[in-house]
């Protein structure tokens, strides 16, 4: 097999004016799989990202009732979100026997690693996608729609190695970092700054986030695949006082506004609508996919840019699917920093939420049993950082298989995406292909 390339940029749906997606309703998600979760890798090969990605992929195949021989495409988000293992034997972190003799399978899982180690002998198409599993998901929708493959596994292992996460050492900084690192400007200050601007503009405050955080944790307590459900159920019982008392990371962002890095792997199985009819699970149809790659005017993303990026995503989602805001039942935008979720809620206008209204909306009934079950997954705040729980939940909700999380409102359409307003990928899903 030839080496795996990145999915071509030209095939993502980035702009407005593209009309209804040409493959609307002709591609379906027919399988989900998730490995167990843990806070960090314990160093055993049985819990490596490679092993867990194969486990997740097999679960997705089992859901659909098909075998490895039915798969003809793999799209992987081949880099995890944590640090590399390093392969330094002097530090007690040497590599292992094949297939764990490099980073591939340990800190990330490539498409060709999965093909080789799962014995996917009929695969004729592989791609990689950067950043988020969301990017790989939209790539799969397009690839299946285009007929490049008919049954595609989409996988990502997202790992968390022992040790402090993503530290930046050294006294010099080049590249893009020359403009930001001397002041410590990175994603977290950007998000905190944006939320501070939001509060100043609309007269809100950080305390008003508490109902949303508590609801995310509550939804997490009903998500058996999630990290907290499996490992730290007590952390799902926090009170508003607990939330507000947690330490600042970058004020106004505190620790409970951040999702917890974890070790796990996930898999989604895509196929054609035609083939989906013969598989075990009720198909969930892809009505559109959207990619957002915002370009900022200067050194950072201003609030005006963030609001426009969010609205731009929504307009693209609606245009390509033919849906309107009032026709979206399930809505699971990324919450990996809770302080940017309001941009999505307002940008999409879900349940009529307008600019500056999200934090008041959180104070209403957003429980899954209620009339406004926002982020029914519990997101990454309620389940640990993967960036795919929103997609996972949306599929389960549309199948009517979300268990205790099942929303009580109509659940025939849904939108899910990650990661930020400036850089994210989105799926619009439906129970009907029409």
């Amino acid at each position, binding site marked *: 097999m030839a080496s795996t390339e990145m999915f071509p940029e030209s095939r993502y749906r980035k702009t407005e004016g593209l009309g209804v997606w040409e493959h609307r309703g002709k591609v379906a998600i027919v399988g989900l799989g998730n490995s167990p979760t843990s806070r960090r890798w314990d160093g055993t090969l049985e819990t490596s990202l490679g092993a867990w990605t194969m486990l997740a992929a097999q679960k997705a195949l089992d859901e659909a009732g098909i075998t490895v021989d039915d798969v003809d495409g793999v799209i992987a988000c081949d880099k995890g979100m944590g640090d590399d293992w390093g392969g330094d034997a002097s530090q007690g972190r040497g590599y292992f026997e094949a297939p764990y003799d490099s980073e591939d399978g340990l800190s990330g899982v490539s498409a060709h690693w999965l093909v080789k180690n799962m014995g996917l002998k009929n695969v004729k198409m592989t791609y990689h996608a950067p950043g988020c599993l969301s990017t790989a998901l939209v790539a799969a929708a397009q690839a299946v729609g285009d007929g490049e493959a008919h049954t595609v596994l989409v996988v990502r292992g997202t790992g968390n190695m022992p040790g402090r996460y993503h530290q*930046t050492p050294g006294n*010099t900084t080049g590249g893009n970092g*020359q403009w930001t*690192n*001397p*002041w410590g400007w990175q994603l977290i200050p950007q998000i905190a700054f944006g939320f*501070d601007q939001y509060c100043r503009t609309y007269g809100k405050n950080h305390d008003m986030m508490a109902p949303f955080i508590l609801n995310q944790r509550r939804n997490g307590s009903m998500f058996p695949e999630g990290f907290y459900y499996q490992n730290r159920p007590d952390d799902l019982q926090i009170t508003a006082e607990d939330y507000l008392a947690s330490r600042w990371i970058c004020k106004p962002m505190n620790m409970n506004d951040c999702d917890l890095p974890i070790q796990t792997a996930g898999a989604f199985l895509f196929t054609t609508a035609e083939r989906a009819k013969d598989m075990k699970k009720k198909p969930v149809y892809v009505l559109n996919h959207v990619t957002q790659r915002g370009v900022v005017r200067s050194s950072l993303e201003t609030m005006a840019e963030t609001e426009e990026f969010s609205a731009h995503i929504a307009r693209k989602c609606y245009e390509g699917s033919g849906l309107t805001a009032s026709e979206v039942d399930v809505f699971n935008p990324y919450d990996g920093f809770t302080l940017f979720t309001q941009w999505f809620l307002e940008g999409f206008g879900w349940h009529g939420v307008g600019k500056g209204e999200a934090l008041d909306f959180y104070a209403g009934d957003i429980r899954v049993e209620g009339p406004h079950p926002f982020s029914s997954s519990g997101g990454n705040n309620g389940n640990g950082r993967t960036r795919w729980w929103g997609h996972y939940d949306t599929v389960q909700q549309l199948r009517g298989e979300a268990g205790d999380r099942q929303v009580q409102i109509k659940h025939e359409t849904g939108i899910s995406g990650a990661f930020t307003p400036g850089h994210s990928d989105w799926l619009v899903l439906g129970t009907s292909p029409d």
Partner: protein
Amino acid sequence: MGKMSPVPDEVSKPFWDACNEGKLIVQNCAGCKGNDGKDWLQHPPQAACYKCGTTENLTWKEMNGRGKIHGYSTMYDSRIRSLQEDQPFIIAVIELEDAPEIKMFSHLPGTPVDDDVPVGGTVQVEFQDTLGTEQKVAEWRVVS
């Protein structure tokens, strides 16, 4: 503050050299105008004009060194190791008086870390030493 030293590249070198000379300059495309009819300025500098995509009209324009605080956040747990000893610290966003669309960062030297950072307040540029090299960086001090 334990600021990392920027390592200039071909595009950024004029900007950083100017900092070492106590001047604040911003890249300008002489062939373009902004929507307000004023000069087209862009920062961080790029290899081509952000608006027209060409390179031949790119030049530099000196700024008056004044700005205002657009907003800020306060860092308690930075990934940047050289800054961790100074936590918590302010990271302010400065918009230039000459070109409000241009934003730069500041630790606001002299401003206490509390909830009373004067958003909207006027700041004046100064140039600070950094840790790794002789390279200076633009910083901003509140003047009113």
